[in-house]
């Protein structure tokens, strides 16, 4: 293994929005930056997202920081860290302005120079607050690409950070660098750094193919953080988007609509056509996903293990043609997916869509402070986590369009914080670095050329099938204990896998790395899910008991031992929570009443609703 002569101030793992924002800001602040991305740069979930970003106040002059904070906290069941939420609400405008200077182009109204927003509040928001972009997430990828290419910093695609290297005594451990695998060159390399930033995204591939995440989301940052001694929080809070294609195989898990896409009159049906749930528009993703998972468990699913989303009622009458128009305006990309996957009849709302929940976002993640600096588990200086891999912002439920702001806000904050902490780490002893790095690299070097009995790929498929069943949208104690035993079994077998000997593009080695990372993440999810005995937010327990909820579940791992802990959280004022419940209840009541109206009247009401939305 090679040790680089060069050293960096900051090494960033990831290649999406959080990584590139942090890299650009850090470069502008004078730091020497290295970005390492498994996939080609400016990709990740950022590139494939819908492209709507949440910016406080962009659609509503009354949208104060306090109102935004309250909205975020309450929808997340107050599991969020107050400091993190406040930082997010304070910085969203500045962060988006930063990206506009880097080249992203929203639509600007000619009448008043304001920015065009989505016409309605996105999922969970209490007001209009989100900005769409032509070409969706691709617009972000291009702006971020420009931000990278117009600056001089080192950024490598096809570069895998394997481990965060740490040193120092227990009371003041600090980051010393990173161990890297370069598959095209076929080399293991270590690099010294004063700060390491994990911007590795989520863990959707743990549930493959029941995910709409990009493939590279294999919990790498979650695992590296755990192995470095950091704590994860809220790992039981995994957001499953309810409406993804259940079939055919090529489309399994691909997103086709938010709850709002059900329209006012869409209903969820089981495999026999019986109604499971109505009023979908104003339900949370978690509620719908749980109902679907339970139905399938009880044997009421469709042939492909999903449910039917029946939108046909929306398409009737005069309002029907407006509904279609509105739909193709707002959701044409999803309709195209439906047409290709399940046919034109389905895309024309004449046949129901066979849908299944899909792992979409991990609200949980590394425990950090409001600048993305790892905190909460003893001293560990110099490690940061930003973007989806970080926890503490969304609590039990992520509001729509917030992840694109999250990557900018915390990318910028982490860069500024890294500059500050650089001063205090000047003069740290880095001479022991080589021997520490060698020791860590040895484990990986030994893997290559290992003759084994099973391919890592086989174990990954077993793990993901099991994860979907046991730590998916519906969980119970028996299933979770069984899953922990399964993980233990897979982990034993993972030490006996067959790995190729050629260091150049060693696919089985790369699969092994991802397998081990996903095993750690899966265990942290299962343990957190067991520890939280009552359903809350995205975490649905079939065997739910009542219990206290104003805490975040923390999980850490050291010396082979798992340690669970609880982080106290600040509960929103009672009257605010009440008001939120009443508002939600009123919306659901409205939809409920609408369904009960005689057809003519219903049609008229809908025509006027749609006409307003289309302006």
């Amino acid at each position: 293994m090679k040790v680089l002569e060069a050293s960096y101030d900051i090494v960033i793992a990831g290649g999406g929005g959080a990584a590139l924002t942090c890299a650009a800001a850090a470069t502008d602040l004078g730091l020497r930056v290295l970005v390492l991305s498994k996939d080609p740069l400016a990709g990740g979930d950022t590139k494939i997202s819908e492209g709507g970003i949440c910016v406080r106040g962009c659609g509503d002059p009354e949208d104060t920081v306090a109102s935004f904070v309250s909205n975020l906290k309450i929808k997340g069941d107050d599991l969020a860290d107050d400091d993190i939420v406040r930082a997010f609400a304070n910085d969203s405008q500045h962060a988006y302005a930063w990206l506009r200077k880097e080249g992203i182009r929203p639509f600007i109204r000619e009448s008043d120079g304001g920015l065009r927003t989505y016409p309605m509040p996105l999922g969970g928001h209490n007001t209009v607050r989100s900005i769409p972009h032509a070409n969706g997430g691709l617009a972000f990828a291009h702006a971020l690409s420009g931000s990278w290419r117009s600056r001089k910093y080192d950024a490598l695609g096809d570069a895998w950070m394997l481990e965060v290297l740490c040193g120092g005594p227990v009371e003041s451990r600090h980051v010393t660098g990173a161990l890297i695998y370069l598959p095209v060159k076929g080399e293991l390399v270590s690099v010294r750094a004063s700060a390491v930033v994990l911007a590795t995204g989520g863990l959707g591939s743990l549930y493959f193919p029941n995910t709409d995440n990009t493939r590279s989301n294999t919990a790498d940052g979650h695992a590296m953080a755990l192995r470095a001694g950091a704590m994860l929080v809220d790992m039981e809070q995994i957001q499953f988007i309810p409406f993804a294609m259940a079939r055919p195989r090529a489309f399994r898990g691909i997103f086709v609509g938010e709850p709002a896409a059900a329209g006012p009159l869409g209903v969820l049906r089981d495999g026999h056509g019986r109604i499971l749930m109505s009023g979908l528009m104003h339900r949370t993703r978690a509620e719908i996903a749980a109902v679907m998972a339970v139905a399938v468990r009880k044997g009421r699913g469709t042939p492909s293990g999903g449910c039917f989303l029946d939108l046909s009622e929306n398409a009737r009458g005069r309002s029907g043609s407006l509904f279609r128009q509105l739909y193709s305006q707002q959701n044409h990309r999803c309709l195209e997916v439906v047409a290709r996957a399940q046919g034109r009849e389905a895309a024309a709302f004449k046949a129901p869509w066979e849908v299944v929940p899909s792992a979409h976002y991990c609200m949980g993640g590394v425990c950090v402070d409001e600048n993305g600096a790892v905190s909460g588990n003893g001293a560990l200086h110099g490690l940061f986590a930003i973007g989806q891999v970080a926890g503490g912002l969304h609590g039990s439920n992520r509001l729509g369009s917030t992840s694109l702001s999250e990557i900018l806000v915390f990318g910028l904050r982490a860069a500024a914080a890294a500059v500050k902490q650089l001063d205090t780490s000047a003069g740290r002893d880095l001479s022991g670095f080589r021997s520490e790095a060698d020791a860590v690299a040895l484990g990986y070097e030994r893997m290559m050329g290992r003759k084994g009995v099973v391919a890592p790929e086989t174990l990954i498929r077993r793990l993901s099938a099991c994860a979907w069943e046991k730590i998916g949208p519906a969980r119970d104690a028996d299933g979770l204990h069984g899953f922990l035993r399964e993980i233990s079994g897979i982990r034993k077998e993972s030490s006996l896998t067959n790995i190729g000997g050629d260091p150049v593009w060693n696919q089985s080695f790369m699969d092994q790395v991802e397998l081990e990372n996903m095993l750690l993440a899966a265990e942290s999810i299962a343990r957190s899910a067991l520890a939280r005995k009552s359903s809350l937010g995205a975490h649905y327990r079939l065997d739910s008991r009542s219990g206290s909820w104003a805490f975040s579940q923390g999980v850490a791992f050291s010396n082979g031992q798992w340690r669970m802990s609880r982080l106290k959280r600040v509960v929103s004022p009672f009257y605010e929570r009440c008001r939120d419940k009443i508002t939600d209840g009123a919306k659901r009541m409205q939809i409920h009443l609408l369904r009960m109206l005689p057809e003519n009247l219903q049609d008229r009401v809908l025509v006027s609703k749609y006409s307003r939305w289309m302006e």
Partner: protein
Amino acid sequence: MKVSRRRGKSKMDEKKTETTAVSVLHGEERDAMSVGRIQVDCEKGDTALDILMKAKAAQVPDLSFRFGCRNRRCGLCAVEINGEARLGCASEVQHGDCIGPLKSLPIVRDLVVDRSGVDALLAQKTALLKVRRGMAECSPDLFHIELGRCIGCLACLSRCPLHAKNYPLPPLLEKEDFGFSTSEFRFGNPYLFLQLYMMAVTDEPGPDERAKLAAVASELGVETCLSCGGCRCIRGIPVFNLVVTPLLKSVQAL
């Protein structure tokens, strides 16, 4: 409305004894790698990506290929199907088809090609240009939206006579910091021209901007494009009209 429940197996589940070939570049020893072909069962509706995943699950556990979103947005899964560059996730295959790597870039293993040469060339040329910065004051127009549809799949390199001039490649050069060898391309390609154009051109490019861009485009060999039928973009972006033609014009004005 009536919801009918499918009885028994659907047509999709019927097994057909049809196969698609996958080209693999494999072998334990780097110097003894050979190209081979494996046959994979092909069912109706299978995409090229489905075939690769099946092959990995059932036949070659360390089969190397890239993919990301499975939904045509990320561009990672570009491969050649019967010699034509396509997105693996978007292309249905059938009996007798053959899936192989993009031949426009150096093959690393099986279906994985090395993209670093294009990145290196783009980085080199971007450094010579002043990348436009600052908040745009108006909405993007159709031109910008169209250019912004590029997903960086690099399929357009496959039929580009200008990119083809990069071959044979000069000996691998060692880049100082990382000892990271990268194939040094000299000539451009549609993706490269589009990226440079997007970064360097404001709504109304001034004479300075035009001149700099023209110089860089000329270095990249854009004059070759005069005798070309036009760029082939699998997303249908009219790169030749929107990007190459203006570049040619500004080169001629130099």
